[in-house]
């Protein structure tokens, strides 16, 4: 992973900009034009005001309105047109920005989600789920702030600053120099104070995370705290963490809050200096030095003062966006990390197809026949062979390591002929789950070979391999939706009848039909409204409707009571019928009914055989069986 590299900030902003342009190739340029147009137009009225004031100044003592009426009204009319243009462009860009902001966020969400679906299971196994979630919540939020507010603001402000600056030079360079001095002071302050603010904001985020972690741990153990009367201690610990969060967030906000007044008042002082300089220039009748060649006069100083205000105001606006930009860049960086995360590699070319049998020959066909075969193209001679899907799985001298150098499986060889049941037995960490992870290529083996129906699984397309291997896991993950939706998850085009038949097969129909809305009962929060056993039954039905020739079962260890356990057990048994099954066994009856029992210890097979053989051996299995050994 290249996550922790500090990439350059400009690169991130540039990429973000490129992406938004790609999402909105028409709208984005239009918006930028509108923003620029709007900004330029908003700074132009100063010119007209200056003209009007100049006219009024010249003729106010005459009292003759009619003489200047036409002139003034003409200027006001033009001004009005500019105002209307500014309003129209303002409305257009504001409306479009709403689309662009939300649309970009949506596209980033979808991009992240889509890439996440292609990532190897290792990603989910090795990353904290809360962390992954925060890509979608916190990071997207910082991006929203940056796109919708900071970007337009920065764009507008820089254009205004540049335009106003131009006009200033146009009017009077002496006064402009005074303004430049002020700007340098402001930039200096922004860098110092704004930098401090950004630093503490990031620290505040960390402190917040720390507080969240602590509170979560305590609240999960709240009942234990009660039982041990540990309330006072945990309050004390919390106070400490809360205090440090308070300090960081106070500093962050303090810096942010102070920045505004400082810049504002530098602006005020600047205003005074411009006024005084202007006064001096007027009194001394100093020659004006400007692009326009206009003579020094009140009609230059007054608008100049206004421009100074505008100038300062915009720099102030920019400084307000600093925190948002710093956090937005950090957020964008994390979002790109997820989007760039390397997807699962798949070089498989053997696929699973529907076939018809004609005269003992397998003929590929499009329609669903219920008979499946592996289509195996051979690159050497261009021929294609078909092998009927049977469910024969063999492991040859398999070694595996999650991390380089830490081998967790050593030289594992075993086979399961179609319809056979293989049970894995052993303590936690013995490697039972690891073996099942290898069969459907959640992880790839380091050495050795795994063959499915005689084909090396590395040659099989992952999606097809996984379709040929069903799985029922200990943690039953159900999804929000109806019970029916959840069963249908196993086979998306299954009819209601097929789903109900599957539920009946595994004995889930009984309780489902007693639910308030039967098969259409909504399952929420991972099935919190169902009992553990009921959830297991639904997940078994889900696997049953998929109907794969090979099943991997991970029996639940959790203590459900004897009666429910019996029902779940019957469901499992029904599912196992006529299939090749690998089962991580916790129940005696499952183990006993298996064709082969594999006893694992520290990644090695230490005993194998059926129940009677192994008992007669009086080895490790015998000890496990008699409960003399810790088994989980």
């Amino acid at each position, binding site marked *: 992973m290249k996550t922790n590299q500090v990439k350059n900030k400009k690169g991130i902003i540039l990429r973000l900009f490129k992406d938004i342009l790609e999402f909105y190739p028409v709208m984005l340029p239009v918006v930028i034009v509108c923003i620029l147009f709007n900004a330029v137009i908003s700074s132009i009225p100063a010119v007209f005001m200056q003209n*009007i004031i100049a006219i009024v100044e010249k003729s*106010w003592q005459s*009292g003759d*309105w009619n003489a*200047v009426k036409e002139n003034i009204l003409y200027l*006001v009319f033009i*001004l009005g047109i500019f*105002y209307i243009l500014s*309003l129209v462009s*303002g409305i257009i860009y*504001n409306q479009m920005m709403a689309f662009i902001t939300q649309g970009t*966020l*949506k596209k980033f969400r979808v991009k992240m989600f889509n890439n*996440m*679906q292609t990532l190897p*299971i290792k990603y989910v196994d090795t990353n904290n*789920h809360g962390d*992954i979630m925060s890509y*979608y919540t916190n990071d997207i939020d910082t991006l929203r702030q940056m796109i919708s507010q900071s970007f337009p603001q920065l764009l507008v402000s820089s254009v205004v600053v540049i335009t106003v600056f131009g006009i200033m030079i146009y009017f009077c360079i002496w006064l402009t120099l005074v303004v430049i001095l002020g700007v340098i002071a402001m930039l200096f302050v922004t860098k110092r104070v704004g930098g401090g603010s950004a630093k503490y904001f990031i620290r505040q985020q960390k402190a*917040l995370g720390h507080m*969240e972690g602590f*509170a*979560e741990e*305590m609240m999960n153990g709240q*009942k*234990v705290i*009660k*039982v*041990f009367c540990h309330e006072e*201690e945990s309050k004390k610990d*919390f106070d400490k963490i*809360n205090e440090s969060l*308070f300090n960081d967030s*106070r500093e962050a*906000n*303090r810096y942010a*809050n102070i920045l*505004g007044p400082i810049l504002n*008042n530098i602006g005020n002082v600047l205003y005074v200096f411009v*006024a*005084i300089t202007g*006064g001096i220039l007027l*009194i001394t009748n100093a020659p004006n030095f400007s692009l326009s060649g206009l003579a020094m006069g*009140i009609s230059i100083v*007054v608008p100049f003062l206004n421009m100074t205000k505008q100038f300062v105001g915009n720099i102030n606006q920019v400084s307000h966006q600093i925190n948002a930009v710093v956090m937005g860049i950090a957020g964008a960086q994390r979002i790109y990390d997820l989007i760039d995360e390397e997807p699962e590699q798949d070089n498989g070319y053997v696929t699973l197809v529907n076939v018809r049998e004609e005269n003992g020959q397998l003929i590929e066909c499009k329609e669903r026949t219920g008979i499946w075969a592996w289509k195996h193209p051979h690159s050497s001679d261009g021929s294609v062979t078909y092998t009927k899907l049977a469910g024969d799985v063999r492991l040859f001298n398999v070694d595996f390591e999650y991390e380089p150098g830490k081998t967790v499986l050593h030289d594992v060889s075993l086979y399961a002929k179609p319809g056979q049941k293989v049970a894995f037995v052993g303590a936690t960490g013995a490697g039972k789950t690891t073996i099942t992870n290898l069969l459907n290529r959640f992880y790839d083996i380091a050495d050795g070979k795994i063959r499915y129906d005689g084909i090396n699984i590395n040659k099989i397309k992952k*999606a097809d391999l*996984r379709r040929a291997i*069903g*799985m029922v*896991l200990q943690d039953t*993950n159900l*999804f*929000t939706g109806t019970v029916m939706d959840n069963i249908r998850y196993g086979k998306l085009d299954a009819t209601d009848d097929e789903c109900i038949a599957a539920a009946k097969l595994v004995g889930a129909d009984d309780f489902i039909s007693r639910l308030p809305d039967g098969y259409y009962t909504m399952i929420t929060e*991972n099935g919190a409204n169902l009992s553990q056993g009921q959830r297991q039954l639904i997940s078994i039905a889900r696997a049953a409707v998929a109907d794969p020739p090979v099943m991997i079962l991970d029996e639940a260890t959790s*203590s459900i*009571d*004897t009666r429910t356990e*019996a029902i779940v057990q019957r469901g499992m048994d029904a599912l196992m019928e006529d299939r090749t099954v690998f089962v991580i066994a916790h129940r005696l009856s499952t183990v006993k009914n298996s064709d082969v029992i594999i006893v694992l210890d520290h990644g090695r097979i230490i005993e194998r055989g059926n129940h009677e053989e192994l008992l007669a051996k009086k080895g490790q299995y015998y000890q496990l069986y008699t*409960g003399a*050994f810790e088994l989980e």
Partner: protein
Amino acid sequence: MVNEIKGGCDLNTIIKYGIILIILAFLSLTFGGVAGSTSATAACGFAKNLRKDMFYSIQNYSFENIDKFLTSSLITRMTTDVTNVQNAYMMLIRVAVRAPLMLVFAFVMAFVMGGRMAWIFLVVVPILAIGLGIIIYKTFPLFKKVFTKYDALNKSIQENIKGMRVVKSFVREDYEKKKFEAAAQDVYADFTRAERILALTGPLMQFCMYVVMIFVLSFGSYTIITSRGLDFDIGQFSAILTYNFMILVSLMMLSMVFVMITLAAESAKRIVEVINEKSTLTNPENPVYTVKDGSISFENVSFKYSKKAERMVLANINLQIRSGETIGIIGGTGSSKSSLIQLIPRLYDATEGTVKVGGVDVRNYDLEALRNQVAVVLQKNVLFSGTIKENLRWGNKDASDEELVEACRLACADEFINQFPNGYDTYVEQGGANLSGGQKQRLCIARALLKKPKILILDDSTSAVDTRTDAKIRKALREYMPETTKIIIAQRTASVEDADRIIVMDRGSINGIGIHKQLLAENAIYREIYYSQNKAGDQSEN
């Protein structure tokens, strides 16, 4: 000042005004700085106190209160909701005073300086106010709705991450992508709708500003010229343009504060809910501080978790347990084994009847005194991040190292702790993630033993421990703590076989009491459980 420059061109006057202005700027800087800094302290302090009050309040919750809230919901309240309130509060103290003041001041000044010109504000301001009102009125419900959808979207991501193995093994990646895209599109559409309305705020304000500008520029110049500067002069002219800006900005800020407060109101409501939640258990007025012995009696006890529940979880329980007795409790899920024992340390109050410990009603004890004498090893037990020692000292914070080792020996935890490179200083990850189930259970038992309680309750606390160790622990308890009343809830009959008495629970009542042999002969439920666990073994042994 503008007047001076225009009129006299007297440098001294300009400098005089300039100095005053600079002094004002410094004052403004000082006050602004102090205000900014104190408001930061105030708002962050407010947030800190809110978090503290919530956490303290939660610490005082009874089990019943804890059951009411989801952990995830409490966490959101302590983080997101507090942040919302904090931001709104800071806005409020920084802007809510300043903006109205600025508004009033600007209005007054506009009338003083601008005279008749200022009437235009009476036309424009209501337009702006009404416009902003409509925008808020329209967007608020939209935002409320879309945030619910947004939550649902995030929940579905969470589901997907948790269920990644299922997604992959059923090859449903594309299906998930489509599902997500549709949900994201939905959220996008609603957000855009709300934001588009909100985006009208800027142009609306610009519109008002422009109207004033045009009016002042045209009608203003007319007035100046026709009245020869008597009714209205150039100084007033530029002043009213400035005040125009001030008035509109302060109105804008007020509307922003208003929006923030309405959004934060929801958060505030959720925070207050936590703080105001009163513990359903309170200490009696003149509590008893000493627990005489470990005898327990249930007298006509009935119990249900919520007042609204129809069915009693425990119905009419009568039971006498002598001090020092070992009691086994067995029964299926939902037979209320755990409910029964939770009444003893007063984790819940009995709905009817009385529970007595040491001959005194549990409601008369000081809660801490009672719970220190009644140690419960909960079924869903938790270890905390910290060293093994730190975790053990939860039982008794003054325990010496020897006492720790002693307790661990009784709980058969000493053997595996010593195998760790760091022994008792081994760091336990959050929730004990780096320990096996059996190890965790043994540590939890040791932690409870350190209390040296008069009553020890093990609620299915050895389910992951192998039978041999389980037996060893029970033997140790019997031999080293003969005075302590021991109550053992178990799934396995093997764990209770040697108890003085075994209670068989079924659907909230006592189905049978007796010793193993007696129950095996007389009690159908006990027999069923016993045989379901031992039948397979018996057959294979033959």
